[in-house]
């Protein structure tokens, strides 16, 4: 029996945006079909249409030759289509078991749950995934990476015919990715249709059999992975050649005096963190997921309490008790979770852009609308945020464009230090290149930049210096000359 999915002339329009335009292609069982495209190319939208979470404006699709049209994800699930969505979909207060099984918990005829059996099955699944948590743990006590694995388990368990992964690795680190890939391999062997969306080219080459390239909602090409080269793919999806991203970076070479110094920072998550950041420098922070990098910058930014330690900006000690203090001291942060921590999703792009600089736009507390619109428009242009209007609400942007809004916000503010926590998470290659250049430009303009990333190639190549963390402590520091992926990994795994 052969599984396949076939899309025919699928189109989808939102207000002011043609998200998908006449897409046709076919994905067969037993192969991993990667969807590749820039942010906002329509990958997530296509998957949502597949599961009935969104309705196509026109077009149809077939599963094993049968024309289907789901009106809700439930129908799709019953039919055998599961999706691991880009946004994690978990119930934080419930146990891992309940999250994974959801409405499918083992039960008797009366609907009474057999928790023992459910937990038992869950335990098996956890072992299969080689995860350290227990079936009883509440999901919100797990780290982001483990939550993502729970999300994957959810879809895996269903044993669906068709499984789609929408950027599953965005918050995973290498060991978990290994596990994930071995599982995908197994699924492939079982003849399932697998869709895989990612912006990490390396992964695509590792896992995909065939690649569908989308651009601005249009189908560009279908290629066999074995026949493709990275440059070619990038050219097709971005529409221009981005060349050797890292070597073409125009870096800053004038590194100045110390702008930020952290001395003996300590709280519940981090221990004895010391480092300095210089003017014009890009300081990378590497480590495995859960190493405490985010916690370090949260502490610096005043979002978490410090139990001990001092923070100096331009040589002056700063009492930072809240993000507001930090911003006044000239520090800005792009948080790692753009939906939860970055954007006010229900408000417009304009309003999201101008939050930290409202006071500059206002006289006597009254916002000058003209100024605000002008500045917002400039930022949208400069960041190449794909949107018909600055008044569009942020929730309607694609993931990558949302990230650009947050970045754009800080470029408007007058900063000395900018901290970027996983700024390229879920960002397409073209934009990534733009962001790397932007980081360098920022450094050139005299900012100190802290760049946190779990993707080793980018930390290693963009940073002037890298600090490696593990379990809340700094395990080492690597100068530009010593920088290599192996060196970073060694420090990241080093036992204390």
């Amino acid at each position: 029996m052969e599984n396949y999915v076939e899309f025919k002339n699928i189109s989808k329009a939102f207000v002011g945006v043609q998200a998908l335009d006449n897409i046709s292609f076919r994905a067969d069982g037993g192969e991993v079909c990667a969807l590749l495209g820039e942010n906002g190319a329509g990958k997530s939208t296509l998957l949502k249409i597949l599961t009935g979470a969104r309705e196509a404006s026109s077009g149809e699709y077939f599963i094993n030759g049968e024309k289907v049209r789901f009106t809700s994800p439930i129908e799709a699930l019953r039919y055998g289509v599961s999706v691991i969505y880009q946004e994690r979909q978990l119930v934080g207060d419930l146990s891992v078991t309940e999250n994974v099984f959801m409405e499918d918990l083992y039960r008797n005829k009366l609907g009474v749950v057999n928790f023992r059996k459910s937990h038992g099955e869950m335990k098996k699944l956890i072992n299969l995934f080689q995860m350290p948590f227990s079936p009883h743990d509440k999901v919100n006590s797990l780290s982001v990476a483990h939550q993502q694995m729970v999300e994957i388990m959810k879809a895996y368990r269903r044993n669906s015919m068709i499984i789609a992964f929408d950027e599953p690795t965005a918050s995973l680190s290498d060991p978990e990715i290994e596990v994930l890939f071995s599982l995908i391999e197994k699924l492939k062997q079982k003849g399932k249709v697998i869709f895989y969306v990612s912006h990490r080219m390396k992964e695509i080459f590792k896992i995909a059999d065939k690649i569908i390239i989308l651009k601005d909602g249009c189908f560009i090409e279908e290629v066999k992975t074995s026949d493709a080269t990275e440059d070619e793919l990038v050219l097709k999806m971005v529409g221009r050649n981005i060349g050797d991203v890292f070597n073409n970076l125009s870096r800053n070479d004038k590194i100045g005096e110390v702008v930020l110094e952290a001395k003996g920072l300590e709280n519940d998550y981090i221990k004895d963190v010391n480092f300095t950041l210089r003017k014009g420098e890009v300081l990378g922070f590497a480590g495995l997921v859960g190493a405490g990098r985010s916690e370090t910058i949260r502490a610096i930014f005043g979002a978490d309490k410090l139990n001990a330690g001092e923070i100096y900006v331009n040589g002056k000690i700063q009492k930072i008790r809240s993000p507001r203090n930090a911003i006044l001291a000239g520090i800005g942060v792009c948080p790692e979770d753009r939906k939860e921590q970055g954007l006010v999703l229900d408000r417009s792009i304009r309003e999201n852009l101008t939050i930290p600089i409202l006071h500059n736009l206002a006289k006597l507390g009254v916002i000058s609308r003209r100024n605000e619109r002008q500045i917002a428009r400039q930022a949208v242009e400069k960041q190449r945020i794909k949107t018909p209007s600055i008044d569009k609400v942020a929730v309607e942007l694609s993931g990558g464009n949302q990230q650009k809004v947050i970045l754009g916000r800080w470029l408007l503010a007058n900063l000395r230090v900018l901290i970027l926590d996983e700024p390229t998470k879920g960002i397409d290659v073209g934009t990534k290149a733009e962001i790397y250049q932007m980081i360098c430009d920022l450094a050139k303009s005299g900012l100190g930049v802290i760049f946190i990333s779990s993707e080793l190639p980018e930390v290693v190549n963009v940073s002037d210096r890298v600090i490696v963390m593990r379990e809340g402590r700094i395990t080492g520091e690597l100068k530009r000359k010593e920088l290599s992926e192996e060196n970073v990994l060694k420090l990241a795994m080093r036992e204390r």
Partner: protein
Amino acid sequence: MKNSEKTNKSANTGLTKYLMQSNEIMMLIVLLLVISFFTFMNRNYLSYFNMTNILLAASTVGLLAIGETCLIIAGHIDLASASVAALFGTWVAILINAGVPWPIASLVVVVASVSVGLVNSCLVNIFGLQPFIATLAISSVCSGLAFIICKGKSVPINEEMFIKFGTMKIAGIPFPAILLIVFFIIFGFILGRTVFGRSVYMIGGNPTAACLAGLNPKKISTILYIISAMVAAFAGVLMTAKMHSGQPGGGAGAEFDAITAAILGGVAFSGGKGNLRGCFIGLLIMQCFNNGLTVISVSAFWQIVAKGLILIAALIFDFFRRERLER
């Protein structure tokens, strides 16, 4: 690694931590404090009679609290429950006076109340109104109808068996109190142990996730609105039996007491949190306190103040538990 840390700790801190983790234990302590205080002030307070009396007084609010707890866990709310109780409590009295045998009359109104649940659900799930405002509006409608069907006058009844139903005692415990406990056990079981119950938590904790996982939040919330209406109608019937009359204005404001009990017991408006055990303890705290204030003859106006204060005190108490836990 974290698990091992936990188990390594001495049994004692383990127990403390376990106790601290449970919101219910903390609220139980508050309850014991309340009871001890009033017993100290007047030792009649702790008598069997008074304690069962507290349960009896809790029965209407308690039944409403069951519906509220389920709905709030699911991320909804029902501000109409007290009016529903009044409407159907009045109606059952009218039916009985019109000669309908009381068990049939009771059954009829409880079944009829399904319609209110459906309307609430329809407004929320089909027309996308916010539950707070939709049920507030329906509350107004039900309350008005309650007065209309009886022309504003309470409806005395004279059906002995029915009155017995509301006033008899078993082993000294009033029948409505027993029913209250039975209902709490049944719904506690449903909420905690059945697939339906767990679904309630899922749709409350994250409706999108639940929906994507194949649950139907609209269906589940519809069932909950219906349950809430039916239990409320039943509470109304019980109230009528207890009062020997249908009261169109009966129970006014009781929905807030019910919600308060739920919150005291650890249910959160954000949804997905809490359980009926906690709600029951919350209910007892409120009722023991209210009863105690009367027992020690606190003046009426100070009682109003005191009720606000105990609520705050109990919740702050709970805050410190959470604080310590997070350290």
